[in-house]
């Protein structure tokens, strides 16, 4: 990025200036600015995507090591369909994604954003801040909090405060109701994303329209049904698709909470266990890459859908480049 002399720059820019087509600075300046980002994206996004698919066609594992492996074609991909555990992992993933999405990441998010915009501004802001805490809390600390909330009597908070006084079952809740546990834990983090986006969408609905609905005597349910929901249709769809994808591929919280025990090993955690981290230290990289490859394909499909349906391409047309 050597400094240029005044003459060079003048030659580049000022004196060769033609409206609408000026070239300011050096022709390859962009490479200096883009270089580091392109390198990192190449090494840690593009290369891994290629590696996933390449290794999925090998029998590489901790037995073959990095040198004694061989190509086995589509065997790993076929194995996914014949593996006795596949359907169980698909099942838990579908249940987990569906219920977290419907009840929390979209449902509760919508409830929170509607309620916090219908109480005094400061209180609404305070509640939204409270709901952001799960998202910013270090994930291990957050899971620790839930473990204790759901612990057995006489320790667990839910059991001690709500269930024991009612004479209900007070055993440890994570192992007793593992699906509810993973859905709750992830849902309380996920709700804030939709909440923020819905809130700004609701706040941008014109006040006239909101007031008109009051004057016309609409009750809150009618107002939600006929004013708010239609007005935030796009954010709703965006949050739904975005959160679907991130739920399908997320496993961090589940890993810390149960590590896949009690039938909670979702697809992405299964792949992670097979390929990177398990109790026995036996890795089947080839198979794990095929499992991850399914997720990569799903992700790519979703990303293409974003580009198409959310008009992302329109958003990248307008920046201030040097057409004067």
């Amino acid at each position: 990025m050597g400094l240029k002399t005044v003459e060079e720059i003048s030659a580049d820019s000022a004196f060769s200036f033609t409206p609408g087509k000026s070239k300011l600075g050096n022709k390859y300046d962009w490479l200096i600015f883009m270089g580091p980002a392109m390198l990192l994206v190449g090494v840690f996004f593009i290369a891994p995507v290629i590696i996933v698919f390449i290794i999925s066609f090998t029998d590489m594992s901790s037995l073959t090591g990095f040198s004694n492996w061989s190509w086995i074609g589509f065997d790993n991909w076929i194995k996914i369909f014949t593996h006795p555990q596949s359907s169980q992992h698909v099942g838990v993933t579908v249940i987990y994604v569906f219920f977290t999405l419907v009840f929390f990441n979209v449902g509760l998010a919508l409830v929170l954003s509607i309620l916090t915009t219908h109480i005094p501004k400061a209180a609404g802001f305070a509640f939204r801040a409270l709901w952001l805490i799960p998202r910013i809390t270090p994930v291990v600390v957050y899971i620790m909090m839930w473990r204790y909330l759901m612990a057995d009597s006489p320790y667990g908070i839910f059991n001690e405060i709500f269930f024991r006084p009612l004479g209900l079952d007070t055993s440890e809740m994570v192992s007793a109701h593992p699906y509810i546990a993973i859905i709750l834990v992830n849902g309380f983090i996920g709700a804030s994303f939709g909440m923020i986006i819905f809130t700004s969408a609701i706040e941008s609905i014109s006040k006239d329209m909101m007031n008109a609905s009051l004057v016309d005597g609409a009750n809150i349910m009618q107002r939600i049904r006929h004013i708010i929901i239609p007005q935030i249709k796009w954010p709703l769809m965006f949050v739904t698709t975005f959160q679907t994808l991130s739920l399908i591929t997320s496993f961090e919280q589940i890993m810390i909470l149960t590590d896949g025990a009690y039938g909670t090993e979702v697809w992405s955690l299964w792949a992670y266990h097979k390929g990177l981290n398990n109790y026995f230290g036996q890795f089947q990289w080839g198979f794990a890459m095929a499992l991850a490859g399914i997720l990569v394909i799903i992700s790519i499909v979703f990303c293409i859908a974003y580009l198409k349906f959310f008009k992302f391409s329109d958003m990248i047309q307008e920046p201030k480049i040097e057409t004067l």
Partner: protein
Amino acid sequence: MIAVSKIRTFPWGKVVPFTILLIFSIPLILGIYWIIISTFSVSTRGLIPIDSAGNPGGLTLANWSFLKDPEVWRLTWNTFVLATTLTFGVLLVSSMAGYALSRINFKGRKTFLGSTMVLQAFPATTLLIATYFVLRFISGVPLLSVFGYDTLGGVILVSIATQLPLGIWLMKGFFDAIPWDLERAALIDGCSRWRTFRQILLPQIRPGIAALSVFSFIIGWSSFLIPYSFMTNQDTAVISTYINRLMQDTAPVNYSTVAAVGLFQLIPVIFFFIFTQKYLLAIFAGGMKGGS
């Protein structure tokens, strides 16, 4: 006037939404309250602190004795190094790329901008196993091995990369909001791109830089999955992996001690959060607003 009186008699009032919000928030409120209480208690039953005999009471500072443990401070230092280098890395790389995408017309600009946007939605966790191979490969390259597998350097690089799509997108947005005139004058007067960027544009987006810094620092300080996956060495572990180890211990877990370490990790985050929540909200929403 009619409208005003209608609003005053609005049947749902403020009480009902408030109550519903409180009910939904109960787990959060109880959980946070418990973390604070238990760090000062021998043990807890529900939310009630108890002493070793099982009677209510038993407030103590013993759980904080980990602060005298040099290992914890080494982990804290590692975490701090991870968080600060991540912050600097993300700021440097994404401000440079954001500048180019906002201001320079080059071939492939649109493609890169599009992929930056799409990569925000692309879940990097699907690539963790493959990233392991990348780091393994880097380990084998002479001179680059400090960024390889099982090093803090490698973890930092991977973390920077995963934050880049959001960082670049935000930075580009900040640059887009700055009028072009000042900079054009400088460029025509013969100032280089690099100097224009550093001396004219960067000072203008200070609030944006501050927001992204706080955000990146919190991400780095809290991160678990990447250090956990790529640093098996105890010497370079971070607080998150340490807490996880305490929690997964096969012996009965002393939650009060773990909670104290957890609160120790949480305090800086909450501190930043309280003072910068407006900016953070903007980042959480801003990066993802596309298409709404």
